């Protein structure tokens, strides 16, 4: 056997990842699958779910990821795995009477959370609606582009993950790669996701996004402060979504969409704290949730501040 042959063999073996295995098994069963290639190493194939790993194993994985990302993007990366803060349940409220549809939040989110620029992924969709029709999702427009906003006769409704208390996306995941954390954030373990996209079908808000291609982010725009369950760089073939900026909120910061919004339409806080901004809103404003009839029980509220 020549060295070349040997090399080829190990290469082949390396490619035989857990995901490939599952894919083959599933397609044998007649499923249509993505057929994407994954760059996981052998250890990743045999490793347990992140949640069930020991501290030492988690640390090892994090160290490996940090090294990998730092090398790829030429910047020192931090991959946090900070646990929830005790006694928190995060909630969000958006003032529809304030939002002017400027999309500052969309791009602040892209930047903070390392969304792929090409192919483009946006976690926040700002829907333009007509005053006459009210909140009519069916006739809303996400591609509006006038010289100035707000446009006469219209209002704007940004939609991202509604962080349901009763999330359907997590229940349909066949491998339990996505779940709700104790602080209420619905997260995805990208290394465990097999890309079957069941969750995308189950989500009634279109909040989950699939990496159809290898995500591309310019080196100088990458955010190296990441969380394992949040904004760390993703790979082709996995699903991603808003995490309330888990890397920020678990150290007490506001999500970046809250910080960028020029009209202060976005409010965030701890639902368990009776003194929080979010509780004040729930108590004093006219609040509603999207598609209430589906019983998803979002922790993302819309309200009218006026």
């Amino acid at each position, binding site marked *: 056997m020549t060295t070349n042959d040997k090399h080829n063999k190990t290469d082949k073996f390396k490619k035989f990842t857990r995901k490939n295995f599952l894919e083959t098994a599933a397609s044998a069963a007649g499923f249509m699958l993505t057929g994407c290639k994954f760059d996981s190493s052998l250890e990743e194939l045999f490793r347990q779910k992140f949640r069930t790993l020991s501290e030492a194993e988690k640390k090892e994985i994090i160290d490996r990821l940090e090294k990998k990302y730092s090398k790829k993007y030429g910047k020192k990366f931090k991959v946090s795995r900070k646990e929830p803060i*005790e006694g928190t349940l995060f909630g969000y409220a958006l003032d529809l009477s304030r939002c002017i549809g400027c999309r500052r939040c969309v791009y602040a989110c892209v930047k903070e959370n390392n969304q792929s620029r090409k192919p483009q992924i946006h976690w926040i969709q700002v829907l333009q609606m007509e005053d006459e029709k009210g909140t009519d999702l069916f006739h809303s427009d996400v591609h509006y582009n006038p010289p100035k906003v707000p446009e006469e006769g219209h209002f704007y409704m940004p939609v991202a993950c509604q962080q349901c208390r009763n999330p359907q996306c997590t229940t349909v995941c066949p491998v339990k790669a996505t779940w709700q954390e104790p602080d209420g954030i619905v997260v995805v373990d990208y290394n465990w996701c097999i890309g079957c996209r069941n969750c995308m079908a189950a989500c009634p808000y279109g909040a989950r996004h699939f990496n159809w291609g290898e995500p591309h982010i310019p080196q100088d725009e990458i955010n190296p402060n990441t969380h394992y369950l949040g904004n760390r760089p993703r790979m082709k073939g996995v699903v991603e979504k808003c995490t309330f900026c888990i890397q920020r909120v678990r150290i007490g910061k506001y999500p970046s969409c809250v910080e960028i919004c*020029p009209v*202060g339409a976005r409010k965030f806080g701890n639902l368990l704290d009776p003194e929080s901004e979010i509780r004040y809103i729930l108590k004093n404003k006219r609040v509603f949730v999207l598609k209430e009839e589906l019983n998803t029980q979002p922790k993302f509220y819309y309200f009218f501040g006026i």
Partner: protein
Amino acid sequence: MTKKSKFIYLTIIIFFTAAAIAGLKHKRKKILRKRSSKKSIEIPVKAPPFSEGIYPCSECHDDLEVNYKRRKLVDEHDNIVLKHDEKNRWCLDCHSAAKRNWLHLAGGKLVSFKESYKLCGQCHGPKLRDWKRGVHGKRTGYWNGKKKYLLCVHCHNPHDPKFKPLKPLPPPVRQENIK
């Protein structure tokens, strides 16, 4: 077991149960206190700057006699076009004629420029209430700690308070064009 020892046992049990309940309550209180953001520190963002050369007002106005007649300003401040209930109000309803570097409330009480929100709150009471709780206006920093807040005049020009339209950032690529 004698009656007496029974009594002693009972007292001890009651004592410990009470202590345990009190302890639990205390712990819960502690957690709640930790969660509460009431004591969080709120820092005003530096007040927006005045237009150049405009402040202190007394520099020019101390030498001028006060003209109480409602009129269109032509010699100075002609760039200010009042679009804020202009039918019913004019300069001296907010700016003090007696103490030029100050504002005043409807009742005559003087208010410094740093506290202009008090003036706004005279008419916009519910907004002031919401703003104090961080619900109207923008806050940045920490949801469970230090926050920076803006004053009314950071976002609203007091002479023309309606928020000005902005150029939107680009729309998302149409699905059929995503490559």
